[in-house]
């Protein structure tokens, strides 16, 4: 069903993952990822429902 397991690419730069920095290829990319969390660069689509989220700022 799923294709045979390959080494997953680094989520930041798509280079092969390095076990010591899993799931990244390097400390640099892990750091970049942290930066994206801290700069609110990651989001997922929200339900386009009529309900207003009271968390909106």
């Amino acid at each position, binding site marked *: 069903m799923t294709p045979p397991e390959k080494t997953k690419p680094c989520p930041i730069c798509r280079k092969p993952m390095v076990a010591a920095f899993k799931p990244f290829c390097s400390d640099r990319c892990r*750091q970049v990822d942290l930066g*994206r969390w*801290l700069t609110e660069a990651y989001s997922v*689509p929200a*339900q*386009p429902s009529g309900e207003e989220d009271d968390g909106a700022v």
Partner: protein
Amino acid sequence: MSDPSATPGEAGADAYEASSITVLRGLEAVRKRPGMYIGDTDDGSGLHHMAFEIIDNAVDEAQAGFASRVDVRLNGDGSVTVTDDGRGIPVDMHEEEGVSAAEVVLTRLHAGGKFNQNSYKVSGGLHGVGAAVVNALSEWMEVRIWRHGQEHFIRFEHGETVQPLKVVGPSGHMTGTEVTFKPSSGTFTKVEYEFAVLERRLRELAFLNSGLAITVTDTRVVPELRTEFCFTGGLGAFVEWLDKGKEPLFKPPINLTTKETEGIRVELAMWWTSSPRELALCFTNNIPQRDGGTHQAGFRQALTRVVMKYAEDLAKKEKVELIGDDMREGLTAVLSVKVPDPKFSSQTKDKLVSSEVQPVVQMAVADALSHWFETHPKEAKIVLEQVVLSAAARKAAQLAREKVGRKNALDISTLPGKLADCAEKDPAKSELFIVEGDSAGGSAKQGRNRANQAILPLKGKILNVERARLDKMLGSAEIGTLITALGTGIGSGEPARGGFSLEKLRYHHIVIMTDADVDGSHIRALLLTFFYRQMPQLIEAGYLYIAQPPLYRAKRGQEERYLKDDAALEEFLLEKALSNAKLYLPGGMLEGAALDEEVRKLRQISGRIRRISGHVPPEVLEQAALAGALKAQPDLESAQRLAARLDAIAHPAERGWMTTVDAAGIHLHRVVRGVTERLNLSMALLNTPDARWLTEQFPTLERDYATPPRLTFDAVEAAPRGPHAALERILAQGRRGLTVQRFKGLGEMNPDQLWHTTLNPDARTLLQVKIEDVEDAESVFSTLMGDVVEPRREFIVENALKVANLDI
């Protein structure tokens, strides 16, 4: 012996004597303070410098284009021999000094060919002290010069001439110089040369002087050690050698060799690797500058300016500002300049201060780099991406310091205000519930066991990305709060300086508790992805869990049941209905365990029918299954059987189903009150695994359900038209008298309900998150969260279910 009061020019005979005194004074100064001239006399660096001075002179001959090889030999008696095939030191009489030129060069400080730019345009030896200093600090020195077809010989002891230059015979060699010296044990505490140290410097010289052959032989050991270096690849080969075993971002290195500008020549080779460290070596006239200087400054200015220009757009996209450090991450560079009369900050030449070098290097490097970036777009993109990532990483480290509490994690006063902490201090006994939404957080705070359960409410932040699209994310403050509450720190730094440490984790149960809807599953996936990427150790240790809040509450009279999902609800309804049900099949009556067994089959059949009932109602497919009309190769006979069955269950006024079969599948139609109704069992449908499976069941289905069976619940009786209808009827029976409440979110549960269903360790079910689970979720959400906007929408539709069911 020397007389300080003696002054030159007293008498003709004394003139020689007097000038000698001056010379001895100079060399005496060297012997008195050797460190000033040759470096440390105790740690071996000065000793090796002795050899390097002589070697540098030989290399200067090669640089000037007159020598092609340099041989270095470590002799058994502690002396060193350096031989070159250059022009040979001049042997004619020096007019001013009245002795041979060779003797002047080897005994007079500040004498030699290096001041006269006609003999050596550039040289590594500085101010000509080299050879004379080595001589002064040697027990003895012997020099052979092959020049004008003759071999000349001169010998010194402690820098004094003991055998003036004389011709010892015809030369068997072409031309050249051979210097052998034995470092004085009176000056150096350590007089043993290290082969490896010489080897390193000679390799460096061979790289810097493409084509020059350099050998080093250690005859002090048996068998003797010998290494030969000769590189034709120039500085590019040097860079490749420095990074051997590392993967560069591109090959070959960027290479630059300029013609002479204002007497200065610039050579450069560089590339980037993915390693975080920078390695940039700078040389002036073959001498390394540990502390850089004007050539390095010119190089860095050019690098920063050029890369800045090309990386501008990318940096804007990543919202970072670049600084020079970003472009030097992973850089390996060798910069070599040839400068006439260079100036250094010290005798050890660790820093170049000649100011005229900087603009020349900057111009040359800027031109070469710009050209490379223009002509290598593919490689350039890889480099620029790395540069921008380096900047982003730097910025992230700074952000992490700002947003994550840095104080001691055990200090309660620094914990975020939103956290409702528990009394327990032992991490092994403490639990943290990460709850989405303030209302749910409120219920959880009231419902929890304060002794060991902490609650951290997190709010998903809604973001209006475009008019038509809403996005949800975890605000940076939320991420900061989470990290602080966990107490672990973040990133690869030292734990004392805020880096991640699992030992500092304050809870060994971290429970993600989100609503059971799509939004909840997205927030959960965001959190899982965060943990997986930034704290995988925590997942590996088995500390991360997912709460299982119920989706339904079913109530009948006083009895109350919480059910976590649709499947659990169905189970529950069946359980109720089947307690007093009987099913009469042609083979006999079923009840109790036998009926349970049959219902399990019915659920399977019904499930498969519902799965393929896209355009065709399940009631029709059910009849098709009973008629054997779901075969991959449809035939008219079964199609007509299906039409007859449909007629049989239709209202008498709506009968009249007609059928045809062709290559596209089975077509059915009837006319009801003048309107034609059509149904198609397409080949695509007939070829599904579900249709095939149902066809395999045909004999049993026909046997048991061809005629509607009798189904009773105490006094109630029914005659379902097939297996699917039978199941529906049983579920409907189960629903009787039952109030089913569906929780839209955690916030709809009161504190007591939340405790009894989700928080209470004796009643709850927690799913432990396994790293493999998250790997799957992670790749799903890499796409979801990635900045590639377009494939993203499709993806969520396809995978929403997959993600929602992550915990199954």
